[in-house]
């Protein structure tokens, strides 16, 4: 055999494919790829043989057929005359809704709990430990089911809100009443909250399938403008302070800029609330947040928050004690130390595991099946699959959509991670 000192010989022998390190990796890769392709081909061949035996041909045309079923919680307009594709989009939007709500709430709860768990307050720290361990070590399905059971078993039925003439005559109170100045009704079907109505509406524009209310757009634009204005005022105040040493009084300006424009806009639009009222079997008017969404959201939030709390705690503990000591030496109060010194540094440790928690939450949102929330799996992977019997096509779309969602979240968060990452010189 050749030693290292030998110059490689020109002639090629078959044995070199295995024994020569220059060619070996090519050989191995070729074999692995061939094996992988053979495996995939085997699966594909089986699939085709099975489908032929069953006389089925894969086709996605069912997506354009009439769905024919109703969905109780939709963010985009949908009736049972729409197509299966539309029903799938409704499900997708519902999945995204619960995922976004869950991620936001879980982050807030998780950060608070994580910080409190390190608090010097003996009682609070212990309580938070109980919460974290309790939620982490029990299946999330259990929490979703328990919260759903609590919501359906303990909250009142809509009819309990009913006030009849006899009750007035007898001076009785109804079994349940609305809260928050009679605007919100919590029932065992869901929470009815007031809806925003506009007397002089700007109408809406359609982007693809998604109708976007111009009112909402206008409000968002005004809010963003107000915040920019507020920032400009603060910046100016700081500039004045630096130049003269005296900070000008700005609170009334800030208030005006922050709240003035939005109030004017709302008045101009003729904004008023549509308060849910009891009529017939249910409350009518307002927006219904179904208990299924509520239970799923709360369950996912509390479960994921327990994990996020641990991540936050680990992130904070990774910051050396000298940092907080230095901060105290500068005279910063504990709250400001946390928000200005510790958390920004801890963020770098926190973000990578946080991404995987967001991914987990999004994937766990498919547990909607336990509470009959009509998410992507409920529409496309549930009723559509049943009605059409196209399990292969439905599952394929379902998995690819979830995959796309996951990749989207992880790439988005990675961009953010790279932005806050410690820039090493």
């Amino acid at each position, binding site marked *: 055999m050749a030693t290292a000192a030998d110059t490689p010989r020109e002639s090629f022998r078959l044995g070199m494919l295995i024994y020569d390190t220059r060619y070996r990796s090519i050989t191995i890769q070729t074999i692995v790829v061939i094996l992988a392709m053979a495996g995939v081909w085997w699966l594909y061949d089986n699939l085709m043989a099975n489908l032929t035996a069953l006389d089925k041909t894969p086709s996605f045309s069912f997506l354009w057929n009439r769905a024919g079923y*109703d*969905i109780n919680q939709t963010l985009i307009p949908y009736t*049972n005359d729409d197509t299966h594709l539309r029903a799938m989009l409704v499900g997708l939007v519902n999945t995204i809704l619960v995922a976004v709500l869950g991620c936001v709430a879980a982050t807030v709860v998780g950060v608070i709990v994580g910080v409190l768990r390190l608090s010097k307050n003996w009682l609070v720290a212990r309580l938070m430990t109980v919460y974290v361990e309790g939620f982490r070590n029990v299946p999330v399905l259990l929490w979703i089911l328990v919260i759903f059971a609590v919501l359906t078993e303990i909250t009142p*039925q809509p009819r309990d809100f009913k006030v009849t003439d006899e009750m007035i005559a007898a001076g009785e109170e109804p079994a349940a009443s609305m809260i928050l100045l009679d605007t919100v009704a919590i029932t065992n079907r869901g929470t009815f909250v007031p809806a925003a109505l506009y007397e002089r509406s700007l109408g809406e524009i359609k982007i693809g399938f998604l109708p976007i209310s111009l009112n909402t757009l206008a409000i968002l634009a005004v809010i963003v403008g107000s915040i920019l204005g507020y920032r400009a005022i603060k910046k100016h105040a700081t500039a004045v302070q630096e130049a003269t040493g005296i900070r000008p009084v700005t609170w009334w300006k800030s208030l005006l800029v922050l709240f003035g424009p939005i109030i004017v806009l709302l008045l101009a639009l003729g904004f008023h609330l549509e308060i849910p009222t009891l009529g017939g*079997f249910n409350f009518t008017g307002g927006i219904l947040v179904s*208990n299924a969404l509520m239970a799923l959201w709360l369950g996912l939030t509390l479960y994921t928050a327990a994990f996020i709390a641990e991540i936050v705690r680990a992130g904070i503990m990774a910051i050396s004690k000298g940092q907080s000591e230095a901060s105290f030496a500068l005279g910063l109060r504990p709250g400001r130390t946390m928000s200005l010194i510790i958390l920004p540094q801890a963020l770098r440790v926190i973000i990578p595991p946080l991404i995987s928690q967001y991914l987990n939450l999004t994937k766990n949102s498919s547990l909607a099946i336990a509470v009959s929330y009509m998410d992507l799996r409920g529409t496309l992977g549930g009723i559509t699959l049943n009605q059409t*019997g196209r399990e292969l096509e439905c599952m394929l779309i379902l998995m690819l959509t979830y995959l796309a969602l996951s990749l989207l979240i992880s790439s988005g968060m990675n961009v953010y991670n790279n932005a806050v990452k410690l820039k090493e010189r």
Partner: protein
Amino acid sequence: MKKSVFLGTLAASALLAGFASAATLDDVKARGELICGVNTGLTGFAAPDANGNWQGFDVAICKAVAAAVLGDASKVKYVPTTGETRFTALASGEIDMLARNTTWTFSRDADLKFTFTGVNYYDGQGFMVKKDLGVSSAKELDGATVCIQTGTTTELNLADFFKVNNMSYQPVAIQTNAEGEQQYLAGACDAYTTDASGLAATRAVFADPENHIILPEIISKEPLGPLVRHGDDQWADINRWVLNALIAAEEFGVTSANVEELSKGTENPEVNRILGTEGDLGAMIGLDKEWGKRAIAAEGNYGEIFAKYLGESTPIGLARGLNAQWTQGGLLYTPPFR
């Protein structure tokens, strides 16, 4: 069919349910066991008792087929299927036949490639509400929240019904009958809708069945029947004629009590043909002469099965209605055995 030797061995072990080949009958005989897909648990139709023995109206059909084919009504393995998994289980050969109150529809027959072998229960979708809701007709349900069990034709019927009557509703789609019950009893929905027989079965196990009423409207036709895969006509015939034999037995007064006696020979040549004392109908479907006798002996004729699991003496208390013999004003009418 090509099988490797090792897979063949695995099939013998408990982990593999078996091989589905073109001739289901041969498979069943070779296995010595009929694999029957049933409901995960619907009182009266198919539910395991405390000892895990399956019982019910649909289960009785499985038992009759097993008795006809294998000579032993207990040689059945029951595979609980959900609304979602049932068709796949049948299509993939995991089960030999599906007896899970399944509605016979065009697309299931033609598009999903199944053969319905008859109708063992003529059903229709109905509504159940609490009595104190003060509703006496489904037309008064405008604005109500309705619980539907998914995985069936019910959500489509429901959508159509409310649309035709120009009413609105809030659908709550649920997975299993147990969840539906829980939601309905907690008042999370005003009405619960599924097949009328299922409603009766559900109501039967409530603590206070008298406080719940099933509304008179039946909003759909739901002919429920056992089904098998397309492409195995012999197996379909066996299933079809076992069911027909049960129905015919009631018509001719053959019961599980007198079947032994009648099989010694009767005046009625059709009864003789069913019981195998005249002619050899069994050979035509690949069975022996006494298949019909065993099928009837298993759980009795159609009327006996109905009375045992669904009839008015049971907690479910269903009247025969459409499911009476044609001679009694019902729809049960078997083709002649000849």
